[in-house]
């Protein structure tokens, strides 16, 4: 199969039950998708199961996804994060069938076969494991968290119509190294709070508990971090003028 086919063209083929097209999409994107999932989940088994679920969903939902015109890789990354975080939350609550819980030393290990430009663990390695193995070093992954009324467990599947167009994703991918440097510029408390949200799947109130900080302070940090990244992304991608 030609490597020049756009992911969205491959998706159209997947929608026609072309298994080879799915295989091509998997080869192209599984490393970045699996890297994200393994960064979030504490065991290799659960990470592998989640990876399969994400691509199985891509297969089953391809007819509708291919009609929307959104970026395939954006869908994969956003869906993978959401699926992994859902599973992590289930593990914390000890929900049955949430997947194997045995820790695995090699989940999340890098590979020479990376197919996407990505700086290693820009949001620190502790991020991943801050979710599964939080900052205080205790094994919080399996610890049930109380329903505190602040929890916003799931936004639900992100509709393809909400996803960026392929052209917009290309702008980001072409500047990924620079954009990761932007993330590096975040003050440590902001970055830590953001890590717990992105890779730990924690709500702002849970992050406040985790960090031992007042909710208001964490809320401010999170919003400042996101605003900083958003503004710099606009600047780097040329969609907004600003100094870096």
């Amino acid at each position, binding site marked *: 199969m030609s490597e020049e086919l756009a992911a969205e063209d491959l998706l159209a083929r997947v929608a026609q039950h072309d298994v080879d097209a799915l295989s091509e999409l*998997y080869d192209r994107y599984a490393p970045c998708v699996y890297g994200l999932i393994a960064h979030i989940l504490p065991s290799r088994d659960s990470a592998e199961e989640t990876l399969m679920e994400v691509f199985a969903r891509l297969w089953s939902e391809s007819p509708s996804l291919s009609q929307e015109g959104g970026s395939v890789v954006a869908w994969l990354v956003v869906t993978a994060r959401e699926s992994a975080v859902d599973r992590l939350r289930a593990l914390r609550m000890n929900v049955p069938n949430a997947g194997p819980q045995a820790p695995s030393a090699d989940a999340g290990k890098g590979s020479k076969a990376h197919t996407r430009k990505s700086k290693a663990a820009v949001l620190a390695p502790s991020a991943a494991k801050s979710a599964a193995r939080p900052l205080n070093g205790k094994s919080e992954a399996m610890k049930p968290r109380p329903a505190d009324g602040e929890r916003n467990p799931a*936004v639900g599947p*992100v509709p393809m119509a909400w996803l960026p167009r392929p052209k917009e994703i290309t702008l980001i991918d072409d500047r990924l190294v620079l954009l*990761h440097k932007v993330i590096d510029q975040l003050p440590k408390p902001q970055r830590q709070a953001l890590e717990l949200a*992105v890779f730990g799947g924690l709500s702002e109130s849970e992050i406040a508990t985790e960090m031992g900080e007042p909710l208001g302070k964490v809320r401010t940090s999170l919003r400042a971090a996101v605003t900083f990244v958003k503004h710099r*992304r606009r600047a780097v991608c040329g969609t907004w003028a600003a100094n870096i």
Partner: protein
Amino acid sequence: MGCQHLEELYELWLLGAISEQGSLDLREHLARGCAHCLGRVREATETVYLLGLASKPARPHPRVKSELLRQISRKVAPNR
């Protein structure tokens, strides 16, 4: 809730990080078909995508792909 107040919430909402009340307010606002906010949500997914790629890529074991394709092929076979 006005659009300006929501500007700083889209990304955190997509990440599932804001309070339940904030999430409900945002959903309600989007359900009214606010074109400005729908555009901003799409932009927010770009930031979520970027943050997700901050993790280090990793190669899954080859058996994962084999198992995936085996399951998919089993679904396709009855249709042939």
